[in-house]
């Protein structure tokens, strides 16, 4: 039981971290916080992959010429290298969107943005926020 728990410890913690990230994305209305939650989720997936690639007693997959050396699996490392770079690219895109949303609605809180959208679709007498919302 203890052995099983120790062997699966990484995976258990990864599940907890993932769910914290998912909770941040669903429950928080602040867009920056949502994006941080997304990156928490993402990093926990990286940890999961790298944990799968570990071989007990192995070393980093850099060949040293000795045929008896045991190496960890290089394939998950390669996949995650790609994912990290793609992750930062999507983060940058998300942040650019947030800046534009903030410019258009004057808020990065989801509730307030929805409210502002609702106000916009009403037949408007004279909006106090008309200038920047075009």
């Amino acid at each position, binding site marked *: 039981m203890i052995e099983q728990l120790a062997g699966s410890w990484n995976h258990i913690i990864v599940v907890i971290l993932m769910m914290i990230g998912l909770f941040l994305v669903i429950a928080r209305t602040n867009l920056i916080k949502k994006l941080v939650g997304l990156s928490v989720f993402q990093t926990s997936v990286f940890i999961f992959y*790298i944990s799968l690639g570990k071989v007990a007693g192995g070393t980093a997959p850099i060949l040293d010429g000795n045929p008896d050396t045991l190496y960890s699996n290089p394939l*998950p490392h390669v996949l995650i290298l790609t994912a990290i770079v793609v992750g930062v690219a999507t983060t940058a895109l998300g942040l650019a969107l947030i800046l534009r949303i903030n410019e258009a609605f004057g808020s990065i809180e989801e509730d307030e943005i929805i409210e502002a959208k609702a106000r916009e679709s009403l037949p408007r007498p004279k909006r106090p926020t008309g200038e920047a919302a075009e």
Partner: protein
Amino acid sequence: MMAGLIINIFLLALLVLIAVMVLRSSRLYAVIVMSGAYSLTSAAMFVNLDAVDVAFTEAAVGAGISTVLFLAAMAYVPADEKPSQNRNLLAGLICVGAGALLLLAVFNLPTLGDPMAPVHQHVAPRYLAESGSALQIPNVVTTVLASYRGFDTLGETIVVFTAGLGVLMLLAGFTRTVRVTPVSSKTASAKKLAGRSKKSSATPKGSKA
């Protein structure tokens, strides 16, 4: 081996602690710096799990560039999160449910470091055995990234290029004016807002021009 295991458990506990602090804090600057710390801690974990290349990249890109991008964006948005409690219960239920299902699956996975796990039986042994003599590059991760899976890297480059184009198009003509909303009565934020309105009055806005 034992020391590695203890370090592993300690770092994972630290990650959970940081994630919970991110969850509880409502000051966005603190949240962003903690997410940088989260990335750095996970980079330490990657070293411990033999993924040195990934650790490099995570420390430079995840903890470095990401944090800088977030901080740069924070210059234009309010520094504090407004309290929102309306969806906590439903979201919590969804997360606990999904987490419980995933935990059920966890115990069917091979344990950490199991050399007979299916993930080690597929193409990885071939990469380790052949890449040294075929390509003369000692770092297997580099070989796989640039040679065996070069098309993956091409696709990655296309994604990054597209995202870069997207950012440029979104921010083209981004005026530096910020709607002045009363965030707090602190002198620091008041000074910042004053500086911003001065800047905005110096550059005429597009709608008036």
